[in-house]
């Protein structure tokens, strides 16, 4: 295996950077061994050759001063850095850099929980703090605050938030619950955002916007700075919590379910990020595919029927919860029951009805802010399986839900894959997550998966749907679909990139944003 150096960087410059990085963080935390160390930073689920996203080195600073030193050294030598927090974003490329030869800036050693403020219900964390770390910490101090974990829960709180991740409690829109940031800029300067810019500020983590343009969003899904600290609002434990599940028997029920969920969400009758889950998502968490069908291609209806019977699930399965004092929960549940269970064939379940059901149990935990790893069992559905998530945003209407579902399912089935998806209903939108699962040992299947993914992007864009997040391989392509008015937004981002990071060292290619010197590498 050959070391791939970044574009426009020679061996001498690379060695110079490595020496400075070793001085900054210690030799033990600069990883150079191509055979034994750097594979930890590969995209394990790659559908294309791993060399396309192979780092030249990885550097793991322990504190913000070390981050500054590494960033400054990178600037001097023109070395592109790819910051990661815990590196668990496997559906979207994991810890691997967009640009081959970039140096991974691994921030997982920065794992301090800097503050838990019980009175004002927030926490301040560094990039290496996972949902599980925070949950354990809150338990250990007897906190009455809940977190909002992603599924699975080993991901970093900061990393998930800056990648616009979502969870399942009423605090499921993670960026909405962010307040206050510390950022290392491309020249090594540390900046505090919003209220944090006021020396001695007493409201850094209480008011999001400060004075003037709100800049925090610029540091999410971007490459304008390295976020080294973040404030996150936590949910006070409510006086009551009642999760529920409703199963639906027919594929076309998705239309009516979505129509009925919209007003329940808009009026906060269902306050959490409720989810409509297709049956194979449920099945993949608990079963291996070959126990139901050994052939290639989409699962036949006979196998799907048996799965539904074995797991006591519907074709669609809606998960939600109510929170608060008992009278409020009872009142809201009555409205929900009236609305969502009057669809023919619908069955509602509560905790006592589904004891021992793995699929129910992990959803029950997620909606209550308990991180778990259960969903990762999907990687047993096909042993040696990998996945990429295709994630278009949809209006909360039956028509859109069915259109997106058909758009994806039809193409996916034609390409020989199963539709494994869920729709997460937020404040005004649905995050439609389709997990494209493929056999990592089947080169033809991986190529087909990659091609299919590109086709889905085009088909969705043609219907007016864009994705909210994506895998490394498709960042340029998806950024290219956001091209209204001669790609005015993209050109604005490029101007910002050139102004904030003139050397072009931070995260080249992240979400299709390339520095001037590498712009030809992109779209």
């Amino acid at each position, binding site marked *: 295996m050959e070391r791939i150096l970044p574009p426009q960087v020679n061996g001498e410059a690379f060695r110079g950077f490595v020496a400075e990085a070793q001085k900054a963080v210690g030799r033990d935390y600069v990883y150079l061994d191509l055979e*034994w*160390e750097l594979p930890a930073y590969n995209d394990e689920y790659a559908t294309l050759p791993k060399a396309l996203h192979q780092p030249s080195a990885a550097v793991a600073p322990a504190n913000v001063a070390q981050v500054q030193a590494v960033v400054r050294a990178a600037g001097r030598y023109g070395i592109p850095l790819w910051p990661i927090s815990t590196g668990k974003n496997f559906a979207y490329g994991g810890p691997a850099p967009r640009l081959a030869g970039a140096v991974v800036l691994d921030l997982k050693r920065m*794992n301090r929980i800097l503050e838990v403020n019980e009175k004002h219900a927030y926490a301040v964390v560094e990039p290496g703090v996972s949902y*599980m770390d925070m949950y354990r910490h809150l338990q250990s101090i007897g906190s009455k605050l809940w977190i909002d974990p992603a599924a*699975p829960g080993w991901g970093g709180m900061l990393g998930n938030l800056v990648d616009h991740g979502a969870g399942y409690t009423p605090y499921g829109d993670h960026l909405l619950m962010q307040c206050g940031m510390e950022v290392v800029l491309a020249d090594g300067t540390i900046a505090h955002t919003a209220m944090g810019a006021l020396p001695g500020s007493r409201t850094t983590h209480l008011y999001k916007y400060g004075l003037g343009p709100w800049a925090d969003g610029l540091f999410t899904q971007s490459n304008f700075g390295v976020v080294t600290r973040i404030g996150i609002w936590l949910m006070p434990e409510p006086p009551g919590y009642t999760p529920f599940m409703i199963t639906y028997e027919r594929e076309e029920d998705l239309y009516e379910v979505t129509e009925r969920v919209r007003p329940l969400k808009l009026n906060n009758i269902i306050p959490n990020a409720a989810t409509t889950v297709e049956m194979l998502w449920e099945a993949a968490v608990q079963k291996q595919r070959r126990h139901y069908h050994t052939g290639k291609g989409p699962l036949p209806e006979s196998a799907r029927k048996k799965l539904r019977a074995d797991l006591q699930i519907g074709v669609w399965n809606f998960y939600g919860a109510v929170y608060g004092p008992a009278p409020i929960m009872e009142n809201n549940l009555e409205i929900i029951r009236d609305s969502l269970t009057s669809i023919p064939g619908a069955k509602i379940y509560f905790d006592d009805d589904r004891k021992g059901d793995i699929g129910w149990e992990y959803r029950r935990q997620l909606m209550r802010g308990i991180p778990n*790893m259960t969903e*990762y069992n999907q990687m047993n559905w096909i042993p*040696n*399986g990998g996945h990429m998530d295709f994630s278009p945003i949809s209006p909360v209407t039956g028509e859109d839900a069915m259109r997106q579902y058909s758009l994806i399912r039809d193409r996916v089935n034609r390409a020989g894959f199963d539709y494994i998806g869920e729709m997460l209903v937020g404040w005004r939108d649905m995050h439609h997550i389709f997990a494209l699962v493929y056999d990592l040992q089947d080169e033809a299947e991986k190529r087909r998966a990659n091609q299919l993914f590109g086709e889905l992007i085009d088909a969705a864009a043609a219907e007016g749907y864009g994705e909210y997040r994506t895998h490394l391989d498709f960042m340029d392509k998806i950024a290219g679909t956001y091209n209204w008015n001669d790609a005015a937004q993209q050109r604005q981002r490029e101007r910002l990139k050139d102004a904030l990071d003139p050397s072009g060292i931070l995260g080249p290619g992240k979400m299709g944003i390339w520095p001037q010197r590498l712009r030809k590498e992109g779209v």
Partner: protein
Amino acid sequence: MMTRRNFLTGTTGLLCGATVLPAWAGLVGDPRTDLRPVLLLSEHPDPRLPFSPREVSLEHHPLSLERAAAISHQAEGPLSVDNYSALVALGTPAAIFALRTQLGSRWRVVMRGMHGAKAARLHEIHAPASLAGSLAGAVGAARDEYDFAGNLLALDLDPRELFKQKRISRLHQAQCWADTARASLLALPGRAV
């Protein structure tokens, strides 16, 4: 108590009864002399090993996806791996993958096994060439994953030599271990060399 000597030479007749092993020095040694034990992670709370973990320098912890995700390099973490001389793990493909990614770049995964994934009797071993070769017999003779773990724990490895080699994949037809796909892993601390 089983001594290092009789364990390694197979005089108990347990380990070598199942597999064909040379008289390796072994990863697990005498707890009185070996400072850092080997860590064994497996789903079964009481793995059917040919020896008691208490009698050799071995610690056993149950492995689940949750446990794999909690593996840490921090001493104060839920389960720190930094005080072990080697790590052997058995589990579902998802759990072993999760564990491998948690080990990161500070540990070196010298062997990855996938058992019964493509076909019930097919075992794939990914390891440095010399190790992949020497494990062929062990895979072939093992009746289940715990037999195989016993063989891994009995390995006498020279990390310096292993780390010079490239890893290769070898497929072996052998006994079916379970009706679901299983995975295995052997890792050594990298920066200790």
